[in-house]
């Protein structure tokens, strides 16, 4: 009898084997569920996808196109994604897919209207905080391609390295390298500017 009680106590004290679900895997399963729901006609699910991935699209655009154009482009890209969602084969890869659409759209934007952009950017940035932010953003944009997107997602959108990796489809190692090298270059350029 005592032995049985002791065993029961021991079982109660023993921590339950926790099914450790990686946050990345959980995100992916949510992504898959949302994409499936959208394909089944649930428009609200697309709203959730939008809420989850809009910062990513915003950050990628901000690293490439003028700020004033970003908001409209974000919406356009999500409309396009909604229309083409049936072509997405791997539902867990919604993030990398929309990131690629965004990069292509940014390239198209530069191909079509380069001149209009720079002028409007300068005219609109009147506020002090924003003008300072825009200065730094310009410095980030001037960095090599591999670094500016990762830095904008980290410093502007506030995403962590693992989040950037999981949403863009890049490996965590390459995101880490890009962050550190990009940050190093940015520090150097900021120091040069302050010395002037």
């Amino acid at each position, binding site marked *: 009898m005592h032995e049985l009680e002791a065993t029961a106590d021991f079982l109660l004290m023993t921590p339950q084997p926790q099914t450790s679900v990686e946050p990345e895997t959980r995100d992916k399963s949510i992504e898959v569920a949302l994409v499936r729901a*959208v394909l089944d006609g649930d428009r609200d699910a697309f709203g959730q996808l939008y809420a989850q991935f809009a910062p990513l699209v915003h950050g990628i655009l901000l690293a490439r196109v003028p700020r004033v154009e970003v908001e409209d482009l974000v*919406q356009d890209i999500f409309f396009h994604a909604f229309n083409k969602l049936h072509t997405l084969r791997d539902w867990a890869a919604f993030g990398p897919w929309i990131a690629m659409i965004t990069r292509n759209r940014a390239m198209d934007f530069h191909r079509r209207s380069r001149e209009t952009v720079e002028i409007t950017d300068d005219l609109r940035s009147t506020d002090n905080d924003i003008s300072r932010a825009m200065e730094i953003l310009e410095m980030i944009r001037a960095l090599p391609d591999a670094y500016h997107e990762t830095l904008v997602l980290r410093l502007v*959108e506030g995403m962590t390295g693992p989040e950037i990796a999981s949403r863009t489809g890049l490996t965590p190692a390459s995101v880490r390298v890009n962050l550190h090298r990009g940050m190093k270059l940015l520090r150097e350029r900021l120091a040069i500017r302050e010395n002037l």
Partner: protein
Amino acid sequence: MNDDYLWNKTGKPDPEVQELEEVLGVLRYKPRPIVLPANLARPRRLRLSALLAVAACVALAFLAAGLWFAATSSKSSKPEQAKQRQLNNPSPSPNVDNQNVAKDQTAGTNQETQPKANNKPQQQSQPVVAYHRHRDNAAVIAKRNREREEALEVKQQLLMALRVASEKLNQAQRKAQNPAPPNQIRNQHKVS
């Protein structure tokens, strides 16, 4: 320099990174609800029916090709087979003639004693063999013609089936790729 803070915002904060975060934070995305236009057709999954149509077409094409190949090969091989048969089993007339010749040679000694007895069956066998040969040839030709007609009919039916299947496939593809928006107004004219 604290790498962990830059990587996943843990550990001791890097003041320079924090300052950059603060300054650049004004450019951060401000949540804004997305409003999907009502006339935006919902994205559709690739339908099972379309996939089945594709699979059926492929299967039908293979079947048609197989039948066509079988029909053409049998058509081309039949004369060859007939030739081969003729080579293997020479026509009965020479055999009969040879037998008759042999019989004549063996019976040459008895020709005087029974001169007309051996000639009678020889005269009778020639028209019979010719009749049989003629009848066989006619039957073979008729059979071949019948088979050719049947093959042509089958071919035409298959071509028709393929045409119908490809048309259906095209329709399915068109539907799958360009779903018509529900509220689209067709033949809209400009009103001045």
